[in-house]
């Protein structure tokens, strides 16, 4: 059924259709509306049987999800940013124990400086945690990916994050097609856990594992993600047959047929990129797009196949590996090893900095001319940066950087005292 609703509400409705038995969450912007909506559905009896557990922190949220998933209940939580970081120890436990928890990450920057706006730093910081990570391009895909995520997680007995851009998607009202309960039931079978805490057949989960077996357990986590590379396209195809639309999969190309320049990105910025690419195609530029949906597992083979015929590529990412450059770009470059392709990285949109079409147009033309440095920063205010660098050169007690930059930019609340 077509509806014009907020992204968070659409996701909440999708989760409810997946019949979760335990939802535990701690509110944090921009994830809050999702769990608020689910809380209301549990309270009203619309979502039943389901227990909504209010917890005292994100650490508790993930810990409860671990317990309920181990007890055989389909378990869901959601978080963002500092909340994700606060649950990190438990995140590694969830994947290490092989528990198929589904978690929405409403992607948001990580502080300090504290910032509630969107980028991909939070979930990418959990790159090696053993969780799968799928990125949604729009709210329809966010909704659809959650339905696929339960299938994928439970099939492999591994947890998964469905990542959607905070505010840009979570708070956007747009058209979504909400499937019926019958459709979702036909796609998503009842949860049949591979391991379950059952008093009738007592087992332990969470043994201490020494050097004699630890590597095998870790390798199996890797093996499961390699299996996911096969399973994700299969589930997307089944989804298409059941629901009649393309959603999910490993990667998606756009106007890539004869492209000499390819732009690679994840999440909602792909929409803006496609608009720019349409305009540039009209002007005669041979440019195309590669959207990465599955960040973990990383589809090296598909990324390589999508790029092998181009001449150069740009990875545009909303994340920064401080001291190195791109995070996604590193994986993409690994995927094209030996092809001789020229690769560029552009860091954009950190902390919610808008990524306008005009900036992208300019950037893509520079990629085409190969006149960019290996790593560039879209719309960075170099004047502000250089002023601070100069200040640090001139003065030993140069003061806090964030406050200095705010002051230089004339943000009133950050004026110096006295």
């Amino acid at each position, binding site marked *: 059924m077509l509806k*014009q609703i907020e992204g968070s509400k659409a996701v909440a409705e999708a989760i409810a259709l997946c019949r979760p038995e335990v939802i535990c969450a701690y509110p944090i912007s921009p994830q809050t509306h999702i769990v608020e909506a689910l809380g209301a559905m549990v309270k009203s009896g619309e979502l039943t049987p389901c227990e909504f557990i209010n917890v005292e922190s994100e650490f508790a949220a993930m810990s409860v999800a671990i317990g309920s998933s181990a007890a055989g209940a389909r378990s869901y939580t959601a978080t963002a940013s500092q909340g994700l970081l606060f649950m990190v120890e438990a995140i590694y436990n969830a994947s290490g124990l092989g528990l198929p928890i589904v978690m929405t990450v409403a992607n948001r920057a990580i502080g300090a400086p504290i910032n*509630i706006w969107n980028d991909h730093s939070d979930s990418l910081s959990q790159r090696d945690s053993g969780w799968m990570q799928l990125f949604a391009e729009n709210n329809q895909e966010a909704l659809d990916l959650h339905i696929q995520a339960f299938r994928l997680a439970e099939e492999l007995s591994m947890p998964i994050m469905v990542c959607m851009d905070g505010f840009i998607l979570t708070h956007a009202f747009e058209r979504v097609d909400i499937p019926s309960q019958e459709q979702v039931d036909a796609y998503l079978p009842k949860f049949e856990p591979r391991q379950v805490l059952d008093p009738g057949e007592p087992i332990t989960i969470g043994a201490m594992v020494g050097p004699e077996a630890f590597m095998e357990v870790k390798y199996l986590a890797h093996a499961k993600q390699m299996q996911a590379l096969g399973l994700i396209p299969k589930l997307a195809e089944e989804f298409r047959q059941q629901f009649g639309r393309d959603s999910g999969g490993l990667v998606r190309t756009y106007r890539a047929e004869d492209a000499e320049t390819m732009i690679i990105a994840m999440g909602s910025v792909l929409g803006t990129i496609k608009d720019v690419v349409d305009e540039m195609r009209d002007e005669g530029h041979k440019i195309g797009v590669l959207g990465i949906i599955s960040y973990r597992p990383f589809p090296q083979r598909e990324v390589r196949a999508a790029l092998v015929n181009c001449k150069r590529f740009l990875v545009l990412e909303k994340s920064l590996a401080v001291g190195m450059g791109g995070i996604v770009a590193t994986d993409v470059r690994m995927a094209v090893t030996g092809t001789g392709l020229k690769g560029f990285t552009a860091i954009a949109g950190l902390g919610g900095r808008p990524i306008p079409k005009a900036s992208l147009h300019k950037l893509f033309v520079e990629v085409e001319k190969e006149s960019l440095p290996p790593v560039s920063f879209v719309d960075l205010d170099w004047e502000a940066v250089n002023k601070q660098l100069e200040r640090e050169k001139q003065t030993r007690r140069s003061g806090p950087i964030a406050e200095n930059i705010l002051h230089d930019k004339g943000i009133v609340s950050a004026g110096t005292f006295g």
Partner: protein
Amino acid sequence: MFEVRIHGRGGQGVVTATEMLSVAAFEEGRHAQAFPSFGSERTGAPVVAFCRIDDKEIRLREPIMEPDAIIIQDPTLLHQIDVFAGLKPDGYVLINSSHSSEALGLGELLKKIKPQRFCTLPAAELGLKHIGRPIPNAPLLAGFAALSGIIKLESVIKAINERFSGKIAEGNIAAATEAYQLVKKKMEERVHA
């Protein structure tokens, strides 16, 4: 694509207004995308929210920098921030105010935009009269429908019914209907003047 930017203050329902506008467009079978400016909103602080309307899927995610229409919920913002930034030359302006453009000190603006695309509307008064609170949302959306013809009054009423129920919905519909007629009348007078 038609792009609308709404300026107001925290608590006035700026974000709700864009969401309802998107629902009204959706009711007409169009694609619409409403989104806030993503600030940490506080009551009384300047707030801006956006709505795009198109006949095809909307993929663009940049903020609206060159709007086709600007709706201003709080006229005290007029001389505080550059609410008209980027307005297209043939763009629409609708302001919640019982004063004329001259009294608002907007002489310069009016030189730049077409008179048939500008209107003031005592939306807060209409809210107070019909809803019991000076919430300018519904009257402004209906006023925008009358001024621009981009959406129909009946779609605004559908959006109101989707968001509210009972007396609040009734009050909003009454306020919207009066606002629509008021703006229509003003625009007709302007044509005949």
